[in-house]
């Protein structure tokens, strides 16, 4: 059974048809690329899946449940995670606290109030930072990181709550060729942890890491 199934998704902004009957199926453990020209609706589709907005028509099923009308926080709790196209790290918090914030989202309110998981999550935070080559920047403010490092931090944050499906919107946008290569290397091992839907413009990048490709036009 598919992990994610989008059927007949349409999104209208007034007269503008951003999505026009899109079908998409993502299997467990696969890396699925989305490609298409600017304005073809790639980001709109990702945002519709993550819950940033609701499709005008069509349905989205995730892990066997209809999530078409669920708000973002419920989708996130069911195992969907999104990395935005525009970097959205929390610039005034430390790199460490950005990841801790993402990780502790699985904790209950009382646990957060009494800081019950602060020590327990420390190892996981440092592990996530080490994995994305940010451990030595843990105490820096996120806003002090370079653009490429911020992109990695965001991927680390999106991956921290252990999602079943990770949605990455242009994770290598604005990166140097070397940073793109490293990003590909960093993403490859997550195949064993979750499925991935990735929007990119770089065909070579897709060729290296994706199993399937969907073209939007």
């Amino acid at each position, binding site marked *: 059974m598919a992990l994610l199934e989008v059927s007949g998704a349409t999104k209208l902004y007034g007269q503008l048809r951003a999505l026009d009957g899109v079908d998409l199926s993502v299997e467990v453990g696969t890396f699925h690329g989305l490609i298409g020209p600017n304005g073809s609706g790639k980001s709109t589709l990702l945002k519709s899946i993550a819950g940033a907005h609701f499709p005008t028509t069509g349905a989205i099923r995730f892990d066997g449940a209809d999530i078409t009308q669920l708000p973002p926080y419920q989708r996130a709790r069911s195992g969907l995670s999104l990395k935005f196209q525009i970097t959205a790290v*929390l610039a005034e*918090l430390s790199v460490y606290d950005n990841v801790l914030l993402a990780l502790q989202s699985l904790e209950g309110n009382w646990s957060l109030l009494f800081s019950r*998981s602060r020590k*327990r999550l420390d190892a*996981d935070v440092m592990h996530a930072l080490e994995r994305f080559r940010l451990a030595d920047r843990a105490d820096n403010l996120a806003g002090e990181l370079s653009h490429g490092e911020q992109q990695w931090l965001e991927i680390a944050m999106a991956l921290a709550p252990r999602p079943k499906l990770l949605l990455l919107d242009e994770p290598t946008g604005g990166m140097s060729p070397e940073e793109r290569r490293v990003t590909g290397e960093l993403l490859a091992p997550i195949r064993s942890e979750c499925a991935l839907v990735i929007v990119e413009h770089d065909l070579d990048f897709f060729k290296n890491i994706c199993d399937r490709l969907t073209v939007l036009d």
Partner: protein
Amino acid sequence: MDAAARPSTLRKAGLPAKRPLRVLPVIELAVLVVLVAAPVVLSGRAELITLMTNVIILSLLAISFDLCWGFSGIMSFGQALFFGVAGYVVALVGRDLDFSQLWGTLPLAMLVGGLLAAALVAFLLLGRKAPSSIFVAFGTLTGAYAAERLVAGWQYVGAGNGLSAIKLMGFGSFEFVERVEFYSVVLTALVLVYAASRWLVRSQLGLVLAGMRQNEERLAFFGYRVQVFKALVFSFAGVIAGLSGALYSYHQGFTGPSNLGPGLSTTAVIYCLFGGSGTLIDPVLGTAAIELLNYVLADTDAIRQFWPVILGVVLLVVVMFQPTGLLGLVVSARERIGSFGVRRRPG
């Protein structure tokens, strides 16, 4: 992310390169020393003890606003609603039930403030769609205004004249009149409220609040139901405002409609913004600065007449030229926001 597999070098790698000097604890300690020493230093100056008592009580109201705005991004123009209603409740309990024991009335006032805030915030925040900050600001303002008008026309609570000769706050057979005894009670209340608030904003829940202030949408995509966190903090702020309102009524021996209206609510905003929101100690300093200024200028009629205008100008200047308030001059943005992870020893 297996903790067992974590290399021991990770913790070392995560060490901060530098830990900037922390100014806030020094300021907090200095304020505490001043407040504890005040009754000794000011012995024989009853009117100054009364002033300091007032400052502390109003600081509690300003802290409740700081929790809303400085820590949760809720622009509340209605904090006086919880303050004033709680003040009326203890006055009525004293008048109608002849009861004013602080172990009963202060918790009651806190409960009333908290429940009222929870009811208002549930209406304002917990709908299907997240409300805009303007909606919340006007919602709280309207609530405070409506309550003031309602009370001003309600004979049972003294209508426009309010309730006077409020029964003195007591503990057993002891009755707290003004001066040092009353001062000790309000200072204890401030220390307890401050400690609880500090603990809250430095907890992992405080990290959620810090993230929320920067990017609410991002937090929703992590799985946080942002409005619930706002509602929790707003309700807690209502508890503090309720406590403050009860102490104010006992201290003044009077309560009236203006104690729960937009006027006092806006004054709390000014106290907080003047000090610099988002540090908890800022409302205390802001309240002290403004109330001391008010006291010093009280004898000058020409200035007193224009006091609201002066306050308005002060607020404008602070918002335009020093949005981080007085404390922003000495406390860095980084220290104000704080760190939430496990503390590591440098070296």
